């Protein structure tokens, strides 16, 4: 079993290739989850950064003597060394100037430092390439040269925090800020407060528990009747049940909605629960399992004078724990993740009755400028089933497996 026990080089290479492929796919599968988790701990500004980074970071700042606020730190190249400098001023306008007769020989100057040639109000101009351009006095090597302004931009003034008189000027937007990895768990409390996600979470749990328990109960007794009790009409009803298994839910959404309007269950959690506890599929699944239970055990119990209910609870239910688990698993996931029906039935303004998927749907619009909060909300919806899954991993996977074999 151990790859290192393999003597053949070929086998070893093959196994390594298998692991490499599996790892690649595992990364593909995991990446969105990792992204969700780390982003949910970021600040909004951090989420809008490009290129994107996995870990949450905050810009670092530093107190510098002579400034009343902490200054943001940037990486700056000073005397050939990369240093951490503080941004003292931004948006300083600079211009690129050149003599009109030699546009290649350009120099850069702060706009605040240059004067118009001929003074304010009577600035001289010159024709360059058929266009009239203003002239400015530029000091170059101790001489004043009239030049034209070719282009202008802005720079920031970066200072050495330890020695504020050392200054470097460069573009702020393209400079790399100094950042620390900082996690923001408060995003979670913020999103809970913003959207009432705690209530949505408990509502979802309530709905899910009731649907799972209710469905198991009706399926077990229905499945038992189909599997073990002979009565006229049973088989034709079973065929009808079978036939409806592949009918998609959307077929029912309009009439079921009208039914809910009629009995006044719109905007009620009851509408998310009661219609869902009767399922043809679950009954079918239980029936399939019950017919595999040996008849002899049952007959022995009947001889002992056990009632049908006793037979069901003492013999059939214990014997069918795997089937029950399978159905509970699917129902759990279905109820936890369902969206279309709650969307139709629960008012968008009634956040007291929201389930998680609905709350997320509102959240995505309301927090569209803070992806960190949206993803924190998504994490709240996604993580509980994942925890359940990790705890009962083997069991979960096996239930899927058995459904596939049975199906």
């Amino acid at each position: 079993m151990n790859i290192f026990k393999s003597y053949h080089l070929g086998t070893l290479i093959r196994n390594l290739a298998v692991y490499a492929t599996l790892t690649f796919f595992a990364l593909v599968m995991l990446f969105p989850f990792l992204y969700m988790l780390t982003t949910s701990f970021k600040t909004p500004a951090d989420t809008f950064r490009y290129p994107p980074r996995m870990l949450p970071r905050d810009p670092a700042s530093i107190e510098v003597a002579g400034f009343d606020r902490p200054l943001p730190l940037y990486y700056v190249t000073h005397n050939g060394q990369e240093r951490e400098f503080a941004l003292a001023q931004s948006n300083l306008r600079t211009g690129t100037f050149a003599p009109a007769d030699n546009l290649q020989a350009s120099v850069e100057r702060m706009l605040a430092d240059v004067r118009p040639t001929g003074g304010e109000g009577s600035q001289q101009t010159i024709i360059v390439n058929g266009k009239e351009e203003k002239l400015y006095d530029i000091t170059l090597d101790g001489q004043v040269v009239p030049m034209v302004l070719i282009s202008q931009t802005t720079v920031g003034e970066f200072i050495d925090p330890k020695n504020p008189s050392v200054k470097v000027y460069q573009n702020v937007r393209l400079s790399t800020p100094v950042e620390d990895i900082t996690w923001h768990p408060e995003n979670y409390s913020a999103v809970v407060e913003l959207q009432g996600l705690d209530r949505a979470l408990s509502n979802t749990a309530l709905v899910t528990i009731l649907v799972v328990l209710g469905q198991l109960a009706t399926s077990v007794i229905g499945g038992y009747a189909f599997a073990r009790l002979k009565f006229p009409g049973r088989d034709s009803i079973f065929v009808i049940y079978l036939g409806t298994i592949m009918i998609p839910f959307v077929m029912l959404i309009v009439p079921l909605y009208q039914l809910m309007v009629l009995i006044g269950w719109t905007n009620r959690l009851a509408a998310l629960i009661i219609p869902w506890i009767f399922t043809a599929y679950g009954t079918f699944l239980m029936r399939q399992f019950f017919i595999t239970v040996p008849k002899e055990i049952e007959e022995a119990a009947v001889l002992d004078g056990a009632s049908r209910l006793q037979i069901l609870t003492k013999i059939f239910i214990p014997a069918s724990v795997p089937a029950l688990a399978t159905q509970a698993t699917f129902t759990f996931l279905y109820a936890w993740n369902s969206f279309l029906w709650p969307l139709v039935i629960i008012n968008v303004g009634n956040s007291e009755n929201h389930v998680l998927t609905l709350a997320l749907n509102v959240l995505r619009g309301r927090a569209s400028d803070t992806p960190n909060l949206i993803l924190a909300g998504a994490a709240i919806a996604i993580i509980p089933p994942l925890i359940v899954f990790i705890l009962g991993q083997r069991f979960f996977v096996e239930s899927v497996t058995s459904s596939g074999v049975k199906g």
Partner: protein
Amino acid sequence: MNDLKNPNTQTELILRLMPAWRILFFLIALAGIPVLWAQDFAAALKVVFSALLGVAALASLVSVPYLLHRDHKGRMISLVLDYLGLLFCLVGVLQVGQVFTGIDSLGAVFQRGLPFLGIVLVGYLFGAASELYPNDPQRQKNLRNTGKVVLILGFIAFLLAVNVFTGLFNFLTRLLQPTGLSMIFGATLFGLSLWAMWREASAQTFNAKTSHEQMISGWLFLSPNLLGFLIFFAGPLLLSFYFSFTNSDAFNPPQWIGVDNYARILNITIKPLNDFAQPARDVLDILVYDEVGRMKIGDGGILFGAQDKFFWLALRNTLTFALFAVPLSVIPALFLSNLLNMKLPGMKFFRAVYFMPSIAAIVGISLVWQWLYNATIGYINYFITVGVEFLNSGFGLALIDPKIQWTSNSGTALLSIIIMAAWQTMGFNTVLFLAGLQNIPGELYEAATVDGAGSWAKFWNITLPMLAPTTFFVVTTTTIQAMQVFEQIFILMNPPEGPGNSTISLVLYLYRSGFQNFQQGYASAIAWVLFIVIFGLTLLQFQRQRKSSIYEG
């Protein structure tokens, strides 16, 4: 007087009362019909309910002679009627006690109860852990007892946290009013009469056979499921069929319009084009049809027009989605399951990781992918950029970074949904395939090895044919799911129909027709067409599966 203590006399007395009770029932049910009509709700339902009441009344009346003759039919009718009456009254008690609507207020306190449910679970796990020590009875017993104590304490705490006792009190006070009391009275009456007929003694009197007993238990056991199924599934399904022939709009009573809805959906036209760029109005009756799309053939082509262009766009998108998403999630799954089946260490870990996306809520997952797909700051474009730069610098290529506008370009919007859906269902299918693989007997491979077959030959000649049932199951379920794609689109796209209607799907269009434009009759017709399409696809796969298994055999 002593006669009354004799069970036989008792039975006799009860059975003499029975016909009277049935006649009373008949009168009450008849009286119920005008009361029903005085209520204020939909006329269609009044008809249904009146009919039900009428049938019940009639049945009750019919049962009287049978009862008098001690015919078993009388007992059966009596049992059914009383049982239904009991159920009705019990539901009525719950309704009057506001249990159904009260689930909302339970939502408010459930949060507090949730941790205690956790304690209940812990207690249960203690008990379950006792199984780990089959050889240590003392330890087992200790664990079990601890478990039980924790479980019961947790449960009591839960009950207190969700105000069960206040609830009980409220429930009872609500019942103390005319409706509630009459419901309780009714339930008692029905219950008593049910019990009277159910008794062993009555059964004997009516000459019940074992088959009769089994029939009664059968229907009894099936009844909760069947009633729920009828009310919340079969009934609405028939209603949906009826709606599809009406102009129901959720505000006004529906009017029968025959097959107009279906005619509107299916009204398409196909016209040849002399010149591919020819405007649609040259060949189409533009007042009826809109252009859905055109296909190039030589210089000319074919133009598809439809009265309801959105339906056909939705059908096209949905089929395209299924056509790509299904293979994209099935083929890699088949490949991965074969790798996982190599029985190397750590495979369980990979299996678990692959399974994770299929557990997560699609709504949440779509929100995550929405930001991954973001064209300016998303990771997917970033990876592409990094890859392009790597190729350009490493291999001297001059590739251009495509900067794909994933969700906002009509060419890639559906593709982004396809990729995400494939990502989400792949792991689930992998696990299904893995189960199928593990059911293939190892001897087959051993024999093939002896015959000198290579890995590929084994895969083609053993694995694939033996996996055929699993493949059929996987492909069918994935296709059925794919045909109902909605949530991913609704969340990921803004607006949901996507750029240039490129992601409008059948279910999305159904939702839009039924709940935004309020053409609920039309939406029902769409639902039925959708069902027929799904049914047809499944049938097609079924045929193929049958064919391939014939070839094997």
